[in-house]
């Protein structure tokens, strides 16, 4: 997992590796400064020699300048490589997501992917920067302080060692305990946030039922348990400071006592004692830093794992070697196809055997869960069949390059998405190089031109995020036009006119028949009216073919079809006006 993350440092590696070097140099300089200070005090001040002060002072200024330089470089390099890592991680995830098949996206969920690319990346970025700047610094500080202490006076340094061992033990215990609490806190934070999210999303329901006070008390409860946990965790962490202070000040007292003895005996100078004090302060600082690093690292490890999972996910669908790059015609064949969404789930489709000629218009109808959407998703190879094979133009879809297949099999999804940008930008998703005229022509075919032209900005109207400024029916028609611009050989409408009024729906179908006679049209719908005139109608029931014939014949032979037909035409369920309740 860590290797996956670290590999993404990529071209920022040199600077990442140089950062600890600068830090090391900075630490060395920092360590030397108290040593020089000792000379200034002993030789200069106590020795009464202004010359010595000037000499060692110059040395110290030189060292300080070096320290400044190294410190600045370390800061700069750390910022450079950690932000670089973050950019690479985002890029790597995004790139891999582009390779994801539909089932991979299902696995992670769109919302999950977004969090990984944002929150988790910043968490790792911060941890990495700290790792570069301070993880090296803290142990280095510790070790070099120790070394300097031993240089000054070996026997006094034993005090340091004892203090450090005590502190390390204490920190380890503290951090393991705290880490557990912090994990619980993250879960509670999720709970609080999801209450907020739900309320923001469903504010109309909350207000309609006048249940604001109930929601507030629900939120209070979640906030209170977060509060309690936070108090416990931070209360625990608050022990860190006093314990550390006690131990290190204990060390200072011991140092003073024995130091005094050594000075009297003549094996230590007062200047050296001052330096020892200064080293002990450095030690305190680095121990504090170490403990903070551990806490933050434990928190970011979870994020790193989530990122690595996205980067290393192997897409379950590949282009074949030596792929076919041309779809000959719009023939579609299902050869005894079975399909399940996951290994453990039940078959969504079983033993489907269908043969559709180029240019045919096929209607598909069936209840929720009958497998309509699953069936059509297999044609542009959004999913792979579990058993049997799907062929387009007489060639197995798995033999095409995905790009070739999908550019000739246009599918308008049930869940339509428009992207922010103008209507024209959105249309050109179908064909990057489409002229304005071609776009308008496609919109006319999809009965979208009339309302688009009525917009003040026409085709340059900017679509808001999620397409919220056009109605459901309008959105569907733009999506159909976008699909038409691909000049497909197979056109699949997966319940794509549900929000379009029946008259417009009829006109769109009529246009299709006259303008695109050679294109195979597959129309999935809940509405009998939308598919009634199709050449053949496929009735699906529980993932199996229950009938496949013309409207008239199905009325005679299929009970399921007859039942749907009667329900919808007995005056009870007919659609009335344009669907898609706008404002």
């Amino acid at each position: 997992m860590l290797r996956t993350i670290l590999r993404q440092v990529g071209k920022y590696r040199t600077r990442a590796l140089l950062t600890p070097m600068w830090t090391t140099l900075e630490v060395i300089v920092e360590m030397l400064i108290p040593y020089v200070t000792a000379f200034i005090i002993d030789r200069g001040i106590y020795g009464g020699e202004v010359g010595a002060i000037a000499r060692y002072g110059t040395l110290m200024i030189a060292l300080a300048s070096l320290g400044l330089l190294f410190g600045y470089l370390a800061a700069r390099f750390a910022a450079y490589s950690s932000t670089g890592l973050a950019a690479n991680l985002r890029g790597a995830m995004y790139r891999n997501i582009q390779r994801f098949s539909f089932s991979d996206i299902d696995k992670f969920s769109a919302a999950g992917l977004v969090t990984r690319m944002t929150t988790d990346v910043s968490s790792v970025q911060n941890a990495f920067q700290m790792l570069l700047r301070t993880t090296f610094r803290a142990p280095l500080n510790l070790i070099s302080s120790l070394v300097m202490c031993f240089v000054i006076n070996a026997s006094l340094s034993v005090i340091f060692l004892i203090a450090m061992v005590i502190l390390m033990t204490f920190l380890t215990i503290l951090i393991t305990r705290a880490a557990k609490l912090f994990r619980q806190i993250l879960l509670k934070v999720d709970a609080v946030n999801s209450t907020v999210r739900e309320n923001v999303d469903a504010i109309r329901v909350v207000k309609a039922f006048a249940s604001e006070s109930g929601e507030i008390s629900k939120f209070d409860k979640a906030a209170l348990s977060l509060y309690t946990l936070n108090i416990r965790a931070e209360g625990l962490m608050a022990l860190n400071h006093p314990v550390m202070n006690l131990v290190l000040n204990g060390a200072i007292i011991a140092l003073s006592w024995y130091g005094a003895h050594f000075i009297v005996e003549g094996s230590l100078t007062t200047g050296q004692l001052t330096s020892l004090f200064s080293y002990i302060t450095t030690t305190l600082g680095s121990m504090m830093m170490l403990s903070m690093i551990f806490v933050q690292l434990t928190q970011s490890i979870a994020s790193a794992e989530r990122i690595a999972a996205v980067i290393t996910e192997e897409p379950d669908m590949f282009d074949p070697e030596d792929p076919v790059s041309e779809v000959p015609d719009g023939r579609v064949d299902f050869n005894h196809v079975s399909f399940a969404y996951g290994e453990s789930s039940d078959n969504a489709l079983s033993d489907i055997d269908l043969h559709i000629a180029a240019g045919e218009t096929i209607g598909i109808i069936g209840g929720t869960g009958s497998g309509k959407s699953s069936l059509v998703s297999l044609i542009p190879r959004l999913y792979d069949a579990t058993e049997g094979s799907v062929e387009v133009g007489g060639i197995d879809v798995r033999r095409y390059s995905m790009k070739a297949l999908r550019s000739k099999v246009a599918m308008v999804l049930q869940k339509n998405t428009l992207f922010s940008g103008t209507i024209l930008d959105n249309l050109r998703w179908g064909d990057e190089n489409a002229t304005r005229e071609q776009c308008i022509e496609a919109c006319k075919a999809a009965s979208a031109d009339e309302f688009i032209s009525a917009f003040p900005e026409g085709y340059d109207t900017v679509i808001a995020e999620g397409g919220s400024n056009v109605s459901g029916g309008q959105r569907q028609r733009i999506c159909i036009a976008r699909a038409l611009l691909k000049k497909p050989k197979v056109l699949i409408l997966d319940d794509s006119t549900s929000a379009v009024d029946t008259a417009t729906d009829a006109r769109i179908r009529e246009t299709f028949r006259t303008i695109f006679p050679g294109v195979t049209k597959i129309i999935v719908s809940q509405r009998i009216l939308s598919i009634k005139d199709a050449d053949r109608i496929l009735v699906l029931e529980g993932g199996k073919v229950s009938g496949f014939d013309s409207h008239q014949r199905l009325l005679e032979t299929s009970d399921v079809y007859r039942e749907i037909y009667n329900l919808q035409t007995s005056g009870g369920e007919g659609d009335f006006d344009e669907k898609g309740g706008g404002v």
Partner: protein
Amino acid sequence: MKKTGTVARLFAYIFKHYRIRLGIVALCILVSALTSLATSLFTRTLIDDYITPMLSGPQVQGLFAGVGVGPDYGPLAMALVRLAAIILVGVVAAYTYNLIMIFVAQGTMKGLRTEGFARMEKLPLSWFDSHSHGDIMSVYTNDIDTLRQVIGNSAPRLLQSIVTIVATFVSMIVMNIPLTLLSIGIAALMFVVTRKLGGISRKYFTERQRNLARVNGFIEEMVSGQRVVKVYCHEERAMEQFSSLNEDLRASVYNANRISNAIMPINGNIGNFGYVMLAIVGGALAIGGVSAWWACGLNGSALTVGTLVAFLTLHRNFTRPVSQISNEINSIVMASAGTDRYYGMLDAEPEEDEGKVILEKGSGEKWDWVSPDGSRTPLEGLVSLKDVDFGYVKEKQVLYDITLTAYPGQQIAFVGGTGAGKTTIMSLLNRFYEISDGTITYDSIDIKDISKNSLRRGLGIVLQETKLFSGTVMENIRYGRPDASDEECIAAAKLVYADTFIRKLPKGYDTVISPGEGNLSQGECQLISIARTAVADPPVLILDEATSSIDTRTERMIQKGMDSLMKGRTSFVIAHRLSTVQNADYIAVLDHGRIIERGKHDELLAMKGRYYELFTGNQITS
């Protein structure tokens, strides 16, 4: 100055709630700062008063004077015990204020969260319409969390730094005036440098926030629309766009971090320069034995070697908090974006609710209106709109002169194309939005005089877009009336034909609905939402018939459910089905915000107007 305004307001809030505790905190900080000053001065005392005298020979005094064979460690031991006591006091003080600050910070956070949420729940829908969900969420996820940093860390550190600086300054000026001035000069330099760098990096931080928002927006849009990206083979172009946004973000984060990272080493080394300068100047003064008044301390004595060593330590104590203060000021200024947003939400105008008339269940399970004077009138269900005008924004009116009366038990259907204003009228009845002109009355009481909760209880609504909450099916039905028993919930489900499918679920009524997981179909969710309204047993109903694609059988169940719910209640229906309009007592045909035709189904057909066009589908709508 508006920015610092909200930060000041946050601090005022904390002072208001934690006055006494903050007093204790301030006291403890003072004690802790003084003890740390005492400890740092100990070095000088140790060397000057204990070690140096011992060096000059055996000095055993008193009874054993002249008898001693070595230096007397007694005074040193005593001093160390005193030091230990001081340290202990300091540690206890520090621990105490840290603990209290945890309570203060966490308590404030909890207070901010709950007060923010409570206010949010009371905000009008227009506020939710004008703020993106992501923005609202980030108040809770980012902004409040940033505030914790300020309250829990920055504020106490700032306070402690100030105390340390003042205390150190006093000791320094007592020891020596010129050295103190020099030290102040160095500290001022550090302060200026930090603020300058902070200013530059703030500029980059703003840029970073902007780029971050852009990348997040792009990811959000593209990843959610990933299926479309794939169907259109748009992967490569999406990648290109992403790469350039990603690079912009990287560059601005780098610039921001590069500068803020550099503040610490720069300050640390300015401190080192200062140290050397002090040593040189001080050394010259001490060794040269300059005793002019300007070279002395406030205590009037000239600089000694021991004092100089102590002064050098003090200098470090003095400069460290200076750079800390400037750092904390930088982070507080940056946090002000968070406080701005938080208080922006807290200051938004809540829904108006001056209504005094309330709704109560009277005798025999019937609803009664209760006036402020205590008089009760039974609810009948007469709803009337008179000359109602409305616009979501002032400049754009969407409804014109809507006049309509629904008599008790009547079923009113609204028809019309997209954007005709059907849903808008519904949102006015229960005061989701305030009308700009005209009146709406419920049993002849102006709805503005009815308390909002009562009004909404008196108007059941089934929204077109079904929103269920995470929890069990039973909990979701009970949402309609929190005190309903299990039996009542099941009865409501049976009434609207939802019982059958619920019983078929793996755990029946205890099946947990998880948002986004989609373990229920859209139609099933809709049935539950109808049951939810049924359990509330509202006297007047507002129904927005579903338009989403639901298979025919489920749709029929929903239709039956809605029909049985409407029985005997005044109902408003946004109609999409023939049966609904055919059975309606009254149909209002809306077009561009006006009622253009009204009457019964047959009458309207006979008019051969807009309704006829809609019905026969000869004319394209919208």
